[in-house]
């Protein structure tokens, strides 16, 4: 099976998954309490005008027709109007998405840079103090909720040491120092999320490395007289990193989930805050848009992982793996 077939298959899976994603989103958001018409017109609107609006919005159609209409609009990137802001949902999301991406990319990059070497060292020094320390760090990392990391970082680096701002986002165009200010605001949220991600990626790197280090080809590499460095980096790591790619992609997507909470902690006006606003104000079109976009980010990062996977792993051409 060629790489192309493989990717076509992956995209096919993605499309099917996406269809279910929209279905779940639609179902869940449509059982939200509250009549959209009432939300729009206010509680004392006359029944007649409510009816008129419902007809206008297609709310008196059977649910599946509503779903198909909604899906068709979605397909055209028309996510409707936010009830709360009166703006097109798509535009609102496009405003916020780049900031969340900035945060998620920075956090993931931080995590990758930190976790890969740590994971490799932990695996190579298995059961030695370095490994135990890395393990402990791993446990602590995955066990502390992202918002707690954030608060601790704020407490230490912003409140006590006063090194960074406690929160907020400043666009480079808004600030006097341009990107410097933006980055100053980025450091704490990105690193606090990065730490949580690091733990996962490190643990995965470690176990993946251990698995590879125990594999026959590593034994053969040693039997060929390769130095340990070559065995570890050239042989084991090259293979170990492949499953880690998936984990990194997953972590990137996970970062998007964490953002809902973390943006609240750091008052980072991105997708997370927008989503929470949508949730709190029962802005159903906005909520649907946010959920779909976040899920899309997840699926796209998975797809990216698949592409990278295929790129790094020549075996993928034979397909069939899952």
């Amino acid at each position, binding site marked *: 099976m060629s790489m192309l077939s493989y990717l076509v298959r992956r995209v096919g899976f993605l499309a099917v998954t996406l269809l279910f994603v929209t279905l779940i989103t639609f179902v869940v958001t449509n059982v939200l309490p509250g009549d959209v018409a009432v939300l729009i017109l206010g509680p004392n609107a006359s029944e007649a005008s409510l009816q008129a609006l419902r007809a206008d919005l297609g709310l008196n159609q059977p649910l599946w027709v509503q779903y198909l209409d909604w899906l068709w609009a979605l397909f055209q990137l028309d996510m409707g109007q936010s009830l709360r802001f009166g703006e097109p949902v798509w535009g609102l999301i496009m405003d916020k998405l780049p900031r969340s991406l900035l945060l998620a990319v920075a956090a993931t990059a931080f995590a990758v840079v930190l976790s890969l070497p740590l994971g490799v060292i932990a695996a190579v020094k298995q059961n030695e103090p370095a490994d135990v320390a890395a393990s402990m760090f791993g446990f602590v990392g995955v066990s502390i909720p992202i918002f707690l990391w954030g608060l601790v970082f704020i407490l230490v680096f912003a409140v006590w040491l006063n090194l960074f701002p406690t929160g907020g986002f400043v666009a480079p165009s808004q600030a006097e120092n341009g990107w410097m200010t933006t980055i100053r605001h980025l450091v704490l949220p990105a690193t606090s999320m990065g730490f949580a991600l690091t733990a996962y990626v490190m643990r995965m790197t470690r176990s993946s490395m251990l698995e590879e280090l125990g594999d026959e080809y590593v034994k053969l590499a040693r039997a060929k007289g390769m*130095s340990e460095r070559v065995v570890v980096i050239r042989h084991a790591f090259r293979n170990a990193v492949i499953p880690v790619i998936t984990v990194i992609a997953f972590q990137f997507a996970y970062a998007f989930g964490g953002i809902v909470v973390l943006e609240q902690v750091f008052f980072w006006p991105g997708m997370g805050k927008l989503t929470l606003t949508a949730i709190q104000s029962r802005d159903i079109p906005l909520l649907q848009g946010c959920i779909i976009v976040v899920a899309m980010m997840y699926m796209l990062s998975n797809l990216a992982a698949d592409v990278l996977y295929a790129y790094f792993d020549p075996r993928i051409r034979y397909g*069939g793996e899952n």
Partner: protein
Amino acid sequence: MSRTQSTATDVASTADTDTPLLDVRDLRTQFSTDADPVVAVNDVSFTLSRGETMGIVGESGAGKSVTARSVMGLIDHPGEIVGGEILFDGEDLAAKSEKEMQTVRGNRIALVPQDPMRSLNPVLTVGSQIVETVERHQNVSETEAKEIAIDAMAETGIPDAADRFSDYPHEFSGGMRQRVLIAIGLACEPDLIIADEPTTALDVTTQAKILDLLNELQEERGMGILMITHNLGVVAQTCDTVGVMYAGNLVEKAELEALFERPTHPYTRGLIDSIPETDREYDELPTLDGAMPDLTELPTGCNFAPRCPYAEEACRTAGDPELRGVEGTPSAAACIRADELDLSEGRVPDAAGLGKSVDRSGDPLLRVEGLKKHFSAGDGVLGGLTLDRSGGGFPKLKRQSVKAVDGVDFDIYPGETVGLVGESGCGKSTVARTVLQLLEPTDGGVYFDDQPLHELGSSEIRSLRAEMQMIFQDPGSSLNPRKTVGGIIGRAMEKHGVASGEEKHERVGELLERVGLSAGAAGKYPHEFSGGQQQRVAIAHALAVEPRLIVCDEPVSALDVSVQAQILNLLNEIQAEEGIAYLFISHNIGVVKHICDRLAVMYLGEVAEFGTVEDVFDAPYHPYTQALLSAVPHADPTRRTNRVLLEGTVPSPIDPPSGCSFRTRCPKKIGDVCEREDPELADAGDGHHIACHLSREEMSEPVGEGHAGDARSVESGARSDD
């Protein structure tokens, strides 16, 4: 190739010197555990000269691999060498630092590992994996290294080596990967090659080619080879001297011929006897009772004593016997009775004349007609789809299927054993499962007792299951680990109303005793038994519902030879008593010949030949049968068969060749007709069916040597070799 020759002469000149290439003295390797350390290699000593091939043979757990790895200084944590010397060319490897060892490994001592599928780094090209060894150990430029690598690949018989240099391992077949591994080993022209079960993972026809290759290379280069194997046939084909290991000890050391002519240790004798040879007739295989002891719970005295038919009181009390020369032989054995015992004759059990005759006058118990089973390729709904560009232009989605079984006919009469034999992937296991309706046939019919199973509903099938049972390859897997043995067997009885309550308990006990276990075994969990015992439990489970047919899917291939013989005997015994018919699936020709009455040889989802064992094993043969038979390594160094080496690999069952499916590899292909027409499985009138366009006379002719030679100049189909 000039370098090779010069090396060969070098070796020849140094081979005369007194120092052996490898002199292992009292090697002791142990693994630390929570409890006492486990001694995996117990004071093993042997020497190996240049140009010599020494085999180390033994069943799993004997310590042979650990011995090999100890020599290379590659013992995994928590193992370590705790005693002895490993003198390699006079230098003690055991005393060398890791850094120093790195210059020895791959350079002067090369390893040919066991598992060609896992021993190559999947993300590096095969070329780079050879080159890195060369660059590591030789002071050469990159271009030179590449040349050396390509030479090595070519030398090991990889066609178009230069082209394939930058292919990835997964683009090679198993046999070709093994050649790559050998090329890696050869690249730095080592003095010693340690071949650790180099052919165990390969099919018998491929194995034959790899063994030939190793033999040839050694003849050319004269390096020493330490051959680790569990297969006495392999030993007989390749080795000059042999060491037999048992439970961490070297129990016998002998010249090859001497070992087979007159073993000096009872264990060696037992091993040789246990192997069902294709050219011998047995009613019952001679067996060794029991299994190798757990290394953590070794018996006092001689480790082998509990299983030894010659054991005396002294054997059990006098401590571990030392390996020493045996009077009147060139061999050495670790047996206190070695001098007095003459083991030159095998111990053939008394129970002669148990031979059976099958009555085929009535209706067959099972009839299989035109059975087909196709699987969708890949997994999932989208999995079977692939882009097809064959038509040119825009790629089309095409659903592919694997034609695992593509038209199989045979029948089984009551009380008869019919074998299905073939190499991996030929579809024999699929036949077994389809026959039992564990898989739904794509086409064709299965008639049990004249009932068309393929037309029955699932509940009817379920009630018929009591009549048809199955024994699986891996007893560890076929017994639910969460249930007691008694529970598993009892459930079968209850399910089919054979027995329940107290009666059930009794019958479970009886059955367990019947298969050679104690009734008390019922309360234990499967993992508490050894492999052989587990297979006995599996047999008891199959017998519990009093079936008329048992399908045995490779029932002994996961077992050590000594245990294998026990199970085969048990199966025969049960058949003799109960009149049960067996459908016996195996890749092992010797086993099949021993146990079967009739035999179907399968190739690529079809039956190539079907007939009585005598018919199939004697000319006229289907050309594939002929090749298969010739490839089996006999555990008899005196027999050198005329090998028929097959070209290429088995074609993909997704897209099998037109006409005769064997024609792409057939040494006797006669031309267009083979490509056009799929030969019928034709009956010569005596019940001997062969699917071939050749006449019976042509089939009886031997395949010329030329063909064997031709196998080297393989047609270079893109990714198909071997």
